């Protein structure tokens, strides 16, 4: 569980940095939203990866799509921007995750 939490914290930090690159306002609110979004997607992604759907890319696509919707709803941005942010954020976190596991 500890490692799961550490991975979650690292994901929040990385995703916040990526989102901050695109939306430079209300940093505290932004951090809260990113934390909420990742608290929803990360534990479930980890659970399904370890227990049933052992396909990292399939899980990442599902996380990406979920985060697009949540970013759009919470940050009140347009879909194209939400898609771009979610794509880059998840690409970076996935690559960091792969690098750490090597």
């Amino acid at each position: 569980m500890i490692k799961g939490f550490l991975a979650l914290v690292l994901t929040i930090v990385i995703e916040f940095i990526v989102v901050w690159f695109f939306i430079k306002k209300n940093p505290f609110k932004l951090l809260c939203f990113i934390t909420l979004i990742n608290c929803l997607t990360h534990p479930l992604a980890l659970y399904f990866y370890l227990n049933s759907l052992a396909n990292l890319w399939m899980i990442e696509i599902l996380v990406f799509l979920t985060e697009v919707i949540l970013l759009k709803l919470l940050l009140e941005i347009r879909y194209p921007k939400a898609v771009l942010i979610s794509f880059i954020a998840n690409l970076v976190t996935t690559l960091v995750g792969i690098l750490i596991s090597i």
Partner: protein
Amino acid sequence: MKKIVLTFLLSLLLLPLVVQADLLPNSTYCHSIENIDDYPDFVFFAYSDRKAFYINKRVTKDFCEYGFFDETFYIYAINKKDVNQSEIESASNRPKTFFWNNDKIIRSNLPLTSVETNPGGRVTTYWNIKKLNDDEFTIKKSDIVHTEGADTTKKGANKWYSWFTEYWQFILPGLAIIIIVLIIVIRKIKRTQI
């Protein structure tokens, strides 16, 4: 505000380094499946193919591993009628084929994770098989015991964090979705009032 967020982010980044100290390979983690002898028709294995923690061995009632805190692996069971000795031996040579592509082998519902650490000592987690047949393998944690030399401390398996560690992957998303829905609803209500 930016300074607060930056300080918070920095502390989040430093947190793993602090917690890492607890992850040092300094404990012996033992598992005891108390009623394993009630299932003489089955063969049991402990298996995990993670790079950081590889385990593949046939297990009996008690077994120990020396290693990292929070390592996770599952117990697998297979009915003796569905497996012969050569296949059991192949488990160590071709574990992926044996554990992943074998529809006769059943994985335990819970991973065997030690949720506590005991530097220099031993943590024994006691498990109980609740149900085991050809389709289902249900285990439940019954106790946790810390041993340091001759001293033994019963920790119990019913602490809140023991429960939380088993279900955090559902509790956290559940809370998050409730808060997200509340934010969206409150925002809409505020807008309709304006």
